[in-house]
């Protein structure tokens, strides 16, 4: 198969996966339980992505010791609870992370 066809096919499939639920062709029932389950989706999809970044290394192995990412992850949760502000959480935690990794513990 030509490489361009393959790229286009992957593009169309990626778009369709995003589009089908928004298309209006499938109707979802709006019971109270359904709405509460739907509201959980950001939590249950984004949490695994966070877990991957905090608990797995570049070789996809589970990190068994406390690392800077885990420390900063918990710090971000605390700052987020305190300030409820995305920008403040990112700035404060990232400053702390960069100080840890590039100044205090340059060699890891």
């Amino acid at each position, binding site marked *: 198969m030509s490489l361009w066809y393959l790229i286009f096919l992957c593009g169309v499939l990626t778009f369709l996966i995003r589009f089908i639920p928004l298309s209006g062709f499938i109707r*979802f029932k709006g019971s109270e339980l359904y709405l509460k389950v739907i509201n959980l989706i950001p939590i249950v999809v984004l949490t695994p992505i966070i877990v991957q970044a905090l608990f797995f290394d570049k070789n996809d192995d589970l990190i068994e010791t406390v690392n800077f990412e885990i420390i900063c992850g918990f710090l971000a949760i605390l700052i987020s609870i305190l300030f409820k502000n995305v920008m403040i959480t990112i700035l404060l935690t990232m400053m702390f992370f960069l100080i840890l990794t590039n100044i205090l513990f340059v060699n890891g």
Partner: protein
Amino acid sequence: MKTKLEHFKSGVIQELPLQIGVFPFGLIYGILAIESGLSVLQAFLMSSIIFAGASQIVFAQFYLLVSPFSLITSIVSINLRHLLYGISINEYLKELSLKWRIILSYLLTDEAYAVSIKYFATNKNKKFMHYHLLGSGLTLFLTWQISTLFGIFFGQLIPENINLAFIIPLSFIAIITPMITQKYEIIACLASGILAILFYKLNFELWIIFSAILSLLISIPFIEKDNSQ
């Protein structure tokens, strides 16, 4: 009441901090694409045609090694989580015209979804709210195209010791932590985290969709208990 422009600006402004994390990801894709033998045009246009970071990286890494069918199956698996994003965000966009739903589907990425779903859930002013997703989506789209170009042409000049990509999970923490206020939300969060670790070795990011769906199922009895109280 907020105007279209105000919603759009909010989307752009709230999406901007995440771009510090998206940019290195685009660079990595650009470098990998060229190293894997894709032409400059193929590498660059793939960022518009597919417009999905993880899928593009998998494409660049594997298109010479596996059959087209395996490659397509992998890309579909990687993107399955977007089905859940669509179902979730559809609650706020179902009154829109088909044209709008096509545009917003194309722009529905992890980062745009994360900031816009929070805005939709907390903003009572529903009219023109979709301009927020347009703003966040276009911001990410532009960053992705520019960072891909940088990766293609200047990728080798970038220092590797600053882990800016760490901003993306931090942003997600900052977005979902304030959303978790009920017992069943804590259970869903813990379940999806633990299941992610258990399923992590599944290929092609299937662990994300598996842990998400299972944790939704686990939390249903707790939601019902919450409803009955």
